[in-house]
């Protein structure tokens, strides 16, 4: 077995190299290192945006330009300021102004594009990247296309950072702070919410995550990082013109993220280093080989990205990680953490869910027709019916994924019809999905912790600054408790994708429980489970029921249903055809006809029993 290096040592070596560099490197290397640092800042934002949240932007270069131009306009005294505001000409104040303005602009652009599906954001960023580039070129007071010089150097504690060697430290401190902030963010409650965006809106919203807000937050963070890079750049160059902020550079930044590995924070450093160095090298080499001048490195970069994405979607970071194996740090669980507060449970037999006359039409198709049902606290209600009967549609109406055409849904006395699943989740309804929706690369522990999202409050900034550790410990302890409860403790640190389908279903229940619900909606929880697992699931649900939980489940395994549930509602063709105790349903003529085509002497549980001869082992 290969020797594994601890992550602390790897980081220490990296920082030591960074510290030594300015004392040994040539002037040319220093310029290169500065450019790598500046690019890394931008690419960090793209890693968060593209690799983690599954969004993308080609317009990051425009945000870099925004930071650069705003700071240049203020510090080079282009903007005529009244005497009272002359203090704003300090580059440090300009940085603040640039960050605030960039964040506001990103907020505006983001709120327009981010609500739309995947493709509008990149197209929007292309269009707006081009527009901003042209606008920079029309600023006559800042030299138009030719640009403007005379921008002051930065001054830090009385030291002027005029040379490449001097500003190097500031650039790389900014990079390392950015890396640390993103690393901290991803390892937090809000970070898990951002990572859950890739799992689809329905799952994230059902866990109470405001996906639209999360997308905008990510977009703003990426824009702000780009603006910091632009600010550093303009005070390093002391000259500004539009060309480094064009769309081509925006595409370069995206290539850096993809090449390095957009799913890892360190991929940003790797990708930026490779592209900056390669570009430098190819720009010298290719014109000599081809015998003419021009930016031919684009051919190499383009082909490289095509080949890379055909071979490995995760970029080069995983290859590097294999060469130099660094031990991943496990999340620590503090068993002594103070338990999270629990919501007051409704009194036994209180009606928790009241579905009244819900009808849902899709064009001419009536998927749910005048459906009514009630679920009480401390009761398990099964919703059964043949495939296509409309059970999952009803689940969607109840959980707020869809809005009924008519009728109402009341949850704990609140009218929740069409209120959206996030709102409903906040009231204490939690669900599992018929088709498992887990983040397959996140560990079991992290997946379950997503369920506890609404039980924490600390935000993005607190997470970046590690001010959330106390709450985080409580959230993880709660997740671990639920994992133990469903019997997955042995798999706690495995990626969810490595579990069997049955275990994944159990994991979804643990995730739902982490939300501290008073109503559980389970969509076919027993499908794909082995007998022993089914029995364990039955025991778990019985225990939850005895604690006063209300459970509504859709299930096809009649054996499982008849043994467990208190009442049954049977649907066929979108309508309720029967409701009652399990024994009554087994002998109900309408139910038999729905399942078997016509009434005959055999009852459902008997066929189910015949199919499952192992019963009672």
């Amino acid at each position: 077995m290969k020797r594994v290096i601890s992550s602390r040592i790897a980081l220490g070596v990296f920082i030591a190299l960074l510290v030594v560099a300015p004392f040994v490197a040539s002037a040319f290397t220093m310029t290169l290192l500065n450019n790598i640092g500046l690019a890394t800042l931008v690419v960090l934002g793209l890693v968060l945006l593209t690799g983690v949240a599954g969004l993308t932007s080609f317009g990051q270069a425009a945000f870099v330009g925004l930071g650069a131009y705003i700071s240049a306009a203020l510090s080079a005294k282009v903007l005529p300021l009244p005497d009272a505001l002359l203090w704003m000409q300090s580059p440090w104040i300009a940085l603040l102004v640039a960050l605030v303005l960039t964040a506001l602009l990103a907020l505006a652009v983001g709120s327009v594009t981010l609500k739309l599906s995947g493709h509008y954001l990149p197209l929007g960023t292309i269009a707006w990247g081009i527009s901003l580039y042209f606008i920079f070129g029309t600023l006559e007071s800042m030299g138009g296309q030719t640009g403007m010089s005379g921008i002051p150097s930065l001054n830090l504690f009385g030291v002027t950072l005029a040379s490449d060697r001097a500003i190097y430290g500031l650039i790389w401190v900014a990079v390392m702070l950015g890396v640390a902030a993103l690393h901290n963010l991803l390892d937090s409650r809000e970070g898990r919410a951002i990572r859950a965006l890739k799992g689809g809106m329905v799952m994230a919203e059902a866990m109470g995550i405001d996906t639209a807000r999360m997308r905008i937050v990510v977009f703003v963070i990426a824009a702000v990082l780009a603006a910091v890079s632009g600010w550093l750049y303009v005070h390093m160059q002391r000259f500004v013109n539009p060309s480094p902020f064009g769309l081509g550079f925006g595409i370069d930044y995206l290539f850096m993220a993809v090449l390095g590995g957009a799913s890892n924070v360190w991929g940003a450093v790797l990708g930026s280093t490779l592209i900056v160095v390669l570009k430098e090298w190819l720009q010298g080499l290719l014109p000599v080989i081809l015998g003419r001048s021009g930016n031919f490195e684009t051919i190499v970069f383009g082909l490289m990205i095509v080949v890379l994405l055909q071979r490995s979607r995760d970029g080069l970071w995983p290859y590097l990680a294999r060469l130099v194996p660094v031990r991943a740090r496990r999340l620590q669980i503090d068993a002594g953490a103070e338990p999270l507060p629990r919501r007051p449970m409704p009194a036994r037999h209180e009606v928790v869910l009241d579905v009244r006359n819900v009808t849902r039409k899709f064009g001419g198709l009536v998927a749910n027709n005048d459906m009514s049902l009630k679920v009480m606290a401390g009761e398990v209600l099964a919703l059964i019916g043949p495939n296509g009967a409309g059970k999952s549609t009803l689940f969607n109406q109840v959980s707020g994924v869809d809005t009924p055409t008519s009728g109402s849904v009341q949850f704990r006395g609140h009218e929740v019809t069409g209120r959206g699943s996030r709102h409903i989740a906040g009231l204490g309804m939690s669900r599992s999905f018929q088709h498992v929706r887990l983040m397959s690369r996140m560990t079991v522990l992290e997946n379950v912790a997503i369920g506890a999202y609404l039980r924490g409050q600390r935000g993005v900034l607190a997470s970046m600054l590690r001010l959330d550790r106390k709450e985080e410990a409580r959230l993880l302890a709660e997740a671990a408790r639920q994992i133990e409860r469903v019997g997955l403790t042995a798999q706690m640190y495995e990626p969810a994708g490595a579990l069997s389908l049955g275990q994944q279903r159990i994991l979804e229940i643990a995730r739902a429980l982490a939300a501290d619900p008073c109503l559980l909606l389970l969509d076919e929880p027993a499908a794909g489970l082995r007998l022993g697992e089914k029995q364990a699931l039955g025991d778990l649900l019985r225990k939850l029921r005895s604690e006063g939980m209300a459970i509504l489940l859709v299930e096809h395994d009649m054996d499982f249903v008849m043994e467990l549930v208190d009442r049954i509602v049977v649907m066929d063709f979108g309508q309720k055809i029967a409701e009652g105790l399990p024994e009554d349903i087994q002998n109900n003529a309408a139910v038999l006809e729905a399942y078997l085509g016509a009434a005959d002497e055999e009852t459902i549980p008997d066929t189910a029993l015949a199919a499952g001869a192992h019963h009672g082992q």
Partner: protein
Amino acid sequence: MNLNIVALLGQDGITNGAIYALLALSIVLVFTVTRILLIPQGEFVSFGALTMGMMQNGQPLTVAWLLVALCLAACAFDLYDMWRTSRRRPSLWLPAKLVYAAVVAGVALSVNFSTLPMLAQIAMTLLLLVPMGPLMYRLAFQPIASASPLVLLIVSIAVHVALVGVALLVFGPEGARTAPFTEAALELGSLRFSSQALWVVCVSLLLIVALFVMFERTLYGKALRAAALNRMGARLMGISPVFAGKAMFLLASLIGVMSGVLIAPLTTIYYDSGFLISLKGFVGSIIGGLVSYPAAALGALAIGLIESFSTFWASAYKEIIVFVLIIPILLWRSLSTRHVEEEE
């Protein structure tokens, strides 16, 4: 602003709009069938225009080597796939591709096209460049056809970036402006319409109608639409997604190259001009929500007109106006779609 100027700007706007409409249609077609946003659509345009320019200047048609290179690479990919899946019988397409590339490149490199009639030049341009579409699909997209739209988009951008570099290498930094198809002009009172503008509008309309007929009336067209609606279902019905992808890319390259040939006499095209042109097609297709053909075409026409009139009023801000326009359109779309989105 008098009537003459309005007519002039309108004529400009409609000719450009017709080209944008063609590109918008092609973008929508490719997107619905393959989920690929075809950013390199613009390169077909610039390659088409620049190849025509190359011929008319009597330069050797070095772009033929690109066809040869792509064909060789595609054959290598085919052979690799055959070896990997241990399928022994080679398809007839493999030698056919090589023969085609050899013959077309041979003719292109040995004949001087500058003295031949315009029709021969156009035919040669199409023969050289249209196969680039399916070859591009084979090489860049077929191996990752099932990837997420985001990955497909990044590959699409990468192909675009590489092709711009290739265009600079093959055609050089000089722009091309070709001779018009016919010299005649149409005079209506004091208004003068250039014949090239009429050519553009007529050929565009013809192509749009042909596309409509193909998709509405022929079995292949219906099969492709089926593939767009439901890939899995279409596949079960025996419609190969590879065939659908290549067919769409063939259409896209045909439309793109034809657009380039049409527009080259009206405006100077450089190696990197294609992107901005196709981007306006994109804005048009966004108006159509990337799914509706008529809305995309009308949107693109509107873009052409807005662009031409903003040239008159605020020429420095021409590009800005067109692209900032996308923001209210997106805003309107985001407000009008109620959104229960499920990613694939």
